[in-house]
């Protein structure tokens, strides 16, 4: 029997809210599923959506993007830029054929350790149910990377 499918989740998080929030999850010893790999960035405003595509082509089955709540950005407005850019890219990604259900945008503050655990668990379970994401990875394998 084949091994059960374990999804790979890549999380793009900002240093000030969500990374600190995930640290708090650790300090509070709240358990969550080990499928997530965190890419630390200074701010969600730093997220280039090419990175999201790259994550998929390199084998991620799901992507979490999380930063400070609106109004709470350490850099005043980076999260707004990320949100605005996401609103634009959403349609494009959908048109291109990316499964939008696999990209989860959220806000987790430095005080929301439990929320981070919930988010990771929720996304992991959701992506596990959706199954592996092969489409982009296969394209990448034939050289369209």
């Amino acid at each position, binding site marked *: 029997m084949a091994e059960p499918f374990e999804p790979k989740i890549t999380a793009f998080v900002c*240093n000030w809210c969500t990374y600190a929030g995930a640290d708090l999850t*650790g300090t509070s010893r709240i358990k969550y599923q080990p499928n997530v*790999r965190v890419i630390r960035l200074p701010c969600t405003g730093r997220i280039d959506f090419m*990175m999201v595509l790259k*994550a998929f082509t390199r084998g991620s089955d799901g992507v979490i993007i999380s930063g400070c709540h609106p109004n*709470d950005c350490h850099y005043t407005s980076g999260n707004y830029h990320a949100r605005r850019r996401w609103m634009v890219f959403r349609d494009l990604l959908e048109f291109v054929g990316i499964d939008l259900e696999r990209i989860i945008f959220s806000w987790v503050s430095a005080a929301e350790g439990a929320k981070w655990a919930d988010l990771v668990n929720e996304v992991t379970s959701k992506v596990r149910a959706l199954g592996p994401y092969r489409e982009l990875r296969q394209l990448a394998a034939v050289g369209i990377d």
Partner: protein
Amino acid sequence: MARVGVFVCHCGENIAGTVDVAAVAKAALDMPGVVHAVDYKYMCSDPGQTLLKDAIKEKKLDGVVVAACSPRMHEPTFRRAAEEAGINPFLCEMANLREHCSWVHDKGAATTEKAIDLVRLQVEKVKRDRPLQPIRVPITKKALVLGGGIAGIQAALDIANSGNPVLLVEKSPSIGGHMSQLSETFPTLDCSQCILTPRMVEVARHPLITLYTYSELEKLDGFIGNFKATIRRKARKIDEKLCNGCGVCQQKCPVKKIPDEFNEGLSFRPAIYVPFPQAVPNKPVIDVKNCTYYKTGKCKACEKLCPTKAIRFDQEDIVEVHDVGAVVLATGFKTMPVGNFSEYGYGKLKDVIDGMKFERLASASGPTGGAIRRPSDGKEPQHVVFIACAGSRDRLKGVPYCSKVCCMYTAKHAMLYRHKVHGGQATVFYMDIRSAGKNYDEFVRRAIEEDGVKYVRGRVSRVYEEDGQLVVKGADTLLGAEPVEIRADMVVLATAVQAQNDAEELAQKLHVSYDPYKFFAEAHPKLRPVETNTAGVFLAGACQAPRDIPETVAQASGAAVKVAGLFSQPTLTREPIIAVVDRQPPPVFSSCVGCFLCKSACPYQAIEEEVIKNRNGDVLKVVAKVNPGLCQGCGTCVSTCRTKAIDLEGFSNEQVFAELMCI
């Protein structure tokens, strides 16, 4: 070829308990570029750091990955160690095996596998790290203290006494805060005003302290050492220079029936008023909302009678911008509105009051001159019931945390009442008595044993009025959970301590984190209790969590030391994590095409236009340039750039994509 060293920390059992650290180190050795990998019990300890330094020297490492705790915890430690071993500190990265792995997952192969992946990401990143030089920026050696309660007063005095100028901003017309309203203070029962007013006067007289009362922070721009604070000085409608505080205006003002905030609504004040006789500054303000002149256009009684002609009806708010190098947040707390407790009938029952009202009743400067009189009919209450934990430790209807000060002040209240009303009976309903502190428990014992305060362990389910008396229904859980019904003349609720109403808004202005209850968050709960995540912004007092006076003063002094320490340096070094626009030899000059999307995206106005000219002065190209003094390194411009001409040091495109390549 890169020569990376990987150091896997056990953190005692914290990491090694769930992650197979030896396997992580072994796996790291197989990663391309890694020439050295070890695991060690405590990397942050002195031998651990020595291990790292020796390896850098012996193995000629040009990159270091420490797989240990969060970089938010120990990155500075290991970067310093790397620097001491002779490599650029920014060639050191951390893989977060503790907070993001061992503490949150169970022991098993998947956890170790994740740990290896986390190390791999950082190895890829560190190989692409460039040596960076810290940026030196000047410091404005002047502090802004927000809030003029005891926390702000103490912080301002300590900073000023260290020789640095302070701007103290208080939103109400006088400094003093909640402490000025208190009657006596636990556990010594010394009069609050007697110990506070000298400090208030000292603030006013200090040559290095500029006091702005009736003022608020509108905006804070900039960064540590170089903040720009925009402050609104609300119009007092008084020329403060001319006013000598004689008080004639207050006596002659025809509006008399405005509930007095200082006395918690137990007395009235006129429309032009000084909050309390010992106010600093002792200059009145006109309450524009209630002043007859502003309502009807007529009156001006104060103007006519003012001996120094100091009244200015046409005075407008003044908005000023001040350069400051550090900010101390000392904005204090509020108590939960008693209207929240419908079961205690507040709002309808005049004799159910909160602790602050009781303070005013008991205070010699209060509306009753210190005599305990109940608000409804002014009679001396013969039986007073005190309810502790009104809203605190109540997950369902109040707040889950302990408000910390209530046990002590309730004991004090009951004691004061017993001292003032001989023969009166005081009953306290409590959950637990939390009296940890120097001489605190002795104080509570004194209330019980010497002053005959009756303590009943149990909750009160309802307070209602019957025949001019209050019926308090509760349970005595130490006597078999028997229902208790007490007829009392007055009920005092020890209401929960909460963050100020505008705490969230203020936190957003300063980019300071806050907890779910809107208390400001410290940078580290144990090791950095007075700092925030925003460099240069410090915390003092109850704006961070419920606190009593001694703790508040201690923390304020702590914050002051942090500010003084910051100001003692000639210049400030800042992490060189900033954006850079690429430069190339002519004729390209830069891959920037001059669209300046980055300029509109930058929250710090750090992007400038650089005009490239030839030797004849003809303009060849206009390209973007980052001002390293202003850039904070958020990277928003990088993702906005259409030609990828901007990159962020420390989080470059190459680095992030390299991390993604090994997912």
